């Protein structure tokens, strides 16, 4: 369903003005991920909106300046392009996104762009989705991030980017087979530490791509697996995994 119908491209203007609420925004961001000319257009339109702001400037109260400068002096700064809680030793030079785009081309392009979008407004929203997106960015920007792709036995491809350092992975899948009503794909961590549910995959059965899902709490020797379970999830996998990716 695309509200208003037509080409998603036309949302570029509304998007540049933060006028696209969820879930349309996520949908449009997925479109942006596949469309370099759209990203370029959004950038240009944002420049135009920034110019609009010049027309409403006011003189701020003097006290505001003192308050803000004092607060800044007491506020720790974020390292470049990593999650806020990442220690400073992970400090990396900017510019990981282009490298990443090469490394994570294809299945994960959407994720990389989502991370770019988040980086642009990192503190803008503190809701759950934002938190997830930051986790995604942290994993993708980790210096030890590695990518693995495996076919899913019932169709489609699962892709994982993992970071030992972040003890987390980002999972996406493309072209999964649609499931009967009442069923969803569920992710599992399977290893010496036991078999733990890593969450239900939302949106399976429609759309080419699912995820990105962040899975944290990796233990040594874990693999990530995917099964089909009732929508409510299962305490244990009820069938052998349709795909199993060993985490190295």
């Amino acid at each position: 369903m695309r509200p208003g119908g037509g080409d998603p491209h036309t949302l570029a203007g509304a998007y540049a003005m933060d006028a696209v609420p969820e879930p349309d925004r996520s949908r449009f961001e997925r479109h942006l991920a596949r469309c370099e000319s759209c990203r370029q257009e959004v950038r240009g339109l944002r420049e135009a909106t920034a110019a609009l702001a010049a027309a409403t400037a006011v003189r701020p109260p003097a006290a505001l300046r003192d308050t803000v400068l004092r607060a800044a002096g007491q506020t720790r700064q974020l390292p470049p392009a990593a999650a806020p809680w990442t220690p400073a030793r992970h400090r990396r030079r900017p510019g990981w996104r282009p490298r990443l785009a090469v490394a994570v081309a294809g299945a994960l392009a959407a994720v990389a762009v989502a991370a770019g979008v988040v980086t642009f407004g990192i503190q803008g929203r503190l809701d759950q989705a934002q938190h997830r997106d930051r986790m995604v960015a942290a994993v993708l920007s980790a210096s030890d991030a590695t990518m693995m792709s495996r076919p899913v036995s019932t169709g489609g491809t699962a892709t994982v980017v993992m970071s030992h350092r972040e003890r987390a992975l980002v999972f996406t899948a493309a072209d999964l087979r649609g499931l009967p009503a009442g069923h969803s794909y569920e992710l599992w961590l399977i290893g010496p530490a036991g078999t733990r549910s890593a969450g239900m995959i939302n949106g399976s059965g429609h759309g080419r791509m699912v995820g990105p899902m962040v899975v944290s709490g990796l233990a040594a020797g874990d693999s990530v697996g995917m099964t089909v379970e009732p929508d409510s999830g299962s305490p244990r996998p009820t069938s052998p995994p349709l795909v199993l990716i060993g985490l190295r």
Partner: protein
Amino acid sequence: MTEGQRRSPGGSSGRPGRPADAAGGHAGAGPGADQLGALLGRVARGDQDAYAAVYDRTAGRVLGLVLSIVRDPAQSEEVTQEVLLDVWRSASRFDAGLGSAAAWVMTLAHRRAVDRVRSEQKAAERERRAASSAVAYDEVAEAVEARLDRERVRRCLGSLTELQRESVTLAYYGGYTYREVAGLLGVAIGTVKTRMRDGLIRLRDCLGVDP
């Protein structure tokens, strides 16, 4: 009040606390923008003097934009503080390859302001609060460059069709979603999406800010 300063329905009814003719700031591109980017680079390395300079170049625009969306002066100052602290905290995330420093700061500001009103207030309540508050802000001093920027914005807004201009100003200065804008203007959602895009494209070309 000119077309260029219409912000939202009710916005032209003499809202208190909003100077009718506030000016200031540098529009997107130009040498001012490059300086701001260089300053942000120093801020990213913890340079507090550079941060004070960034504050002086952006605070008026940030507060003005936030006020136009949030309306309530106390809340607007709160949001402005958050935005400017964001700038301090995340200066290292600014990537000149993705746009100008001014656009980065104003995008942070717009998002924060929009998040505030969408999470806390209905549009109607926004209007009511604004009507009950009466904090006056001075106009920004009319630096020549700032005045030129403002005139340019006004002229370019004037070059849009009525529907394009209404759609853009309601979304940007009003903080409304495209669905809300469609409702306010009584036109189809698809029409509003198109007008927003066409309007911004025309503005972008008129302002000469294409990156």
